C-alpha cells in the first residue's frame, strides 16, 4: 500500500486537485463555451477603448460655459458646428492631410527599393542587417528619434556647425513644415517596409527572370511585372502610412515647435491649454471617424495582412 503511494508523485497529486478544481469551476458540459471564456479577458480589455469612445461622444455634445468653466448639462451640436466652421481647424486639418499625402508618397518611394532588396538579396547577412536597421529605430521610440534630429538639424546642430566650418551662415532647418514631413517619413519607413515585404515575398522571382529572358529591360520588368503584382502591398502600406502620419502627435510637436500643429496637437491643446473638453472631444471623434474609415477600407480590401489573427476562413 505504502509502496504504491510512493510511486504516485506529488506533482501528479497536485495536478489531480487542479484538474478536479477546473472541472468543478467549468464542467465539461460547458465545453462549447470554453473559447468564449478564453476570449473574454481580451474583449473586456478592448472594451476600455469602446468605453472611452462613448465618453468622448458624451463630452463632444456638451459645451464649455466660459463663465463657470463647467460643462453644460444638456446636449447640443454646437461643438460640431464650431469644429467644422472655424478657420483654424480647417487650416490644421488641411496641413495634416496634405502632409500625410506627401509623406506617404515619399515613404513608399524609399520603402519599395528597401523591401525589394531585403526580400530578393541572396545574402542572408545583408538581409539581417537591413532588418536590424529597420527594427532598431522602430524599437527606440519617437521621442528619442526626434531628439536625434534636433541634434542634427538644430540652430547649433551638426549640419549648421558643419556648414559654419565652410563659411555658410546658419540656416533655420527646424520648426518648419519640411522638417516635420522629413521626420514623419523616417518614422514611417519601418512600417511601410514591413507591410510591403510580405507582398514582395509573394511575387515569384522566376516571373522577373522570365520577363528579362523575353527581352524586357529591368525598368520595363519593374513597371509591368513587379509593380502591378505588388499593388495590394503598396495600397495597404500607403493607407497605413496615411493614417499614422495624419494622426501623429510627437513629430509635429517636437520638430514643428508649436507652429506646425497637426490634428492630434490641436486636440491636445483643446484639452490641456484651452481646457475646452467638449471641443477637444469633438475633434477627437471626427479624427477617429476619418482614421477608422481609412483603416477599415484597408482591412476590407486586403484583409488584415500580416496582422491577421487566426485562420482566414470566410
Amino acid at each position, binding site marked *: 500500500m505504502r509502496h504504491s503511494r510512493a510511486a504516485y508523485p506529488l506533482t501528479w497529486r497536485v495536478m489531480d486537485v487542479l484538474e478536479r478544481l477546473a472541472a468543478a469551476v467549468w464542467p465539461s458540459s460547458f465545453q462549447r463555451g470554453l473559447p468564449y471564456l478564453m476570449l473574454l479577458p481580451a474583449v473586456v480589455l478592448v472594451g476600455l477603448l469602446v468605453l472611452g469612445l462613448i465618453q468622448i461622444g458624451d463630452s463632444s455634445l456638451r459645451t464649455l460655459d466660459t463663465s463657470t468653466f463647467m460643462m453644460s448639462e444638456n446636449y447640443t451640436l454646437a461643438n460640431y458646428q464650431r469644429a467644422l466652421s472655424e478657420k483654424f481647424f480647417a487650416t490644421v486639418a488641411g496641413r495634416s492631410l496634405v502632409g500625410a499625402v506627401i509623406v506617404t508618397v515619399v515613404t513608399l518611394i524609399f520603402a519599395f527599393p*528597401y523591401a525589394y532588396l531585403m526580400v530578393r538579396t541572396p545574402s542572408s547577412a545583408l538581409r539581417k542587417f537591413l532588418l536590424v536597421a529597420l527594427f532598431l529605430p522602430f524599437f527606440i521610440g519617437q521621442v528619442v528619434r526626434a*531628439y536625434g534630429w534636433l541634434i542634427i538639424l538644430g540652430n547649433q546642430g551638426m549640419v549648421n556647425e558643419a556648414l559654419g566650418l565652410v563659411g555658410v551662415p546658419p540656416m533655420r532647418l527646424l520648426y518648419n513644415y519640411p522638417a516635420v514631413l522629413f521626420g514623419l517619413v523616417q518614422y514611417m519607413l519601418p512600417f511601410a517596409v514591413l507591410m510591403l515585404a510580405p507582398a514582395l515575398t509573394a511575387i515569384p522571382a522566376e516571373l522577373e527572370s522570365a520577363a528579362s529572358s523575353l527581352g524586357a529591360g529591368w525598368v520595363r520588368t519593374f513597371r509591368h511585372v513587379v509593380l502591378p503584382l505588388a499593388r495590394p502591398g503598396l495600397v495597404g502600406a500607403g493607407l497605413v502610412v496615411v493614417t499614422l502620419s495624419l494622426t501623429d502627435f510627437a513629430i509635429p510637436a517636437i520638430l514643428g515647435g508649436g507652429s506646425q500643429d497637426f490634428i492630434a496637437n490641436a486636440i491636445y491643446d483643446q484639452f490641456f491649454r484651452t481646457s475646452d473638453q467638449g471641443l477637444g472631444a469633438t475633434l477627437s471623434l471626427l479624427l477617429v471617424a476619418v482614421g477608422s474609415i481609412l483603416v477599415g477600407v484597408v482591412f476590407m480590401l486586403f484583409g488584415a495582412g500580416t496582422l491577421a489573427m487566426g485562420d482566414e476562413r470566410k
Partner: protein
Amino acid sequence: MTGSRSKSIVIWAFVITALVMLSAPTVVVLGASFTAGNIITFPPEGLSLKWYGAIAQASDLRQAFVRSLIVATICTLIAIPVGTLAGIALSKYRVRFARTIQIYLLLPFTIPLIGSGIGMMLVFGEMGALGKLWPVGIATCVINLPFMIWAVTASASNLSPDLELAAANCGAPPLQRFLYITLPAVLPGIITGSLLMFILALNEFLVSLLLVDARSVTLPVQIYNSIRSIITPDLAAISVVFIACAGVAIALLDRLVGLDIFLKSK
C-alpha cells in the same frame, strides 16, 4: 549585364539614403552622449563618460526610468495571459462570429492613438485613477494587444490538433493537455509577443503623456518635457538606455524566433 548594373545602382542609391535616414538619429544620439563638452557640438569636443555619471546622479531621470519599467512590466504581465488565451481560442477553436471578434480585437489599431488615449484618459479620470501607474500599464497593454494576439495565433497555427487528441487518448485530462501540449507549442509566440509588448510599452509616449501627471511622468514624457526647454547631453545619455533596450530586444527576438518571420507572406 548593363541593365542589371544600373538596376543595382538605382536600388542601392535609395536603400543607402533610407539607411542613413533610419540610422542617423541613433548614431548621433550615441555619439553625443560621449561628448566632453557642456553643449552638443560638431565636431565633438573629445570623449568622456561624464554625462553617464550625471544621469546616474539625476534622481528625476532615474525615477522616470523606474516608472517606465514598472509600466512596461504591468503591460506585459497583463498581456501574456489575456493575449495567449485569446490567441489560442481564435486559432484552435471554431468560434461563432470569429470575423466580428477579430475586427473588434483589432480596434486598438484602427482607432488613432490620440483617440484611444483621450478616451482612456476620460475613463480613468472618471474612476479617479489618473496620476497612478497602473492605468498607464493597462492603457499601453490595450493599444498594443493585437501584437500579442497575432504572435500567439501565428505559432498556434503550427500546432497539430492531433497531438492534443493523442494526449487525450492516453488519458490526459483537459488542464494537463493545455499545460503540457498546447502551452509549450505556443511558447515561441508568447515570447515574441511579450518582448514586443514590453519594448513598445517602455517607449510609449502619447498615451503616457495623456495619462500621467507631474508626479508620475514616465521616461519618454520626461525626455519630451526636457527637450522643450534646453538640449543638453544628459538627455542623449539617457536616450542611450532606450537604444540599449532596443538592441537587447532585437537580439533576443532574432535568437528566439528569427527576424525573418516578418518577411513571410501569409
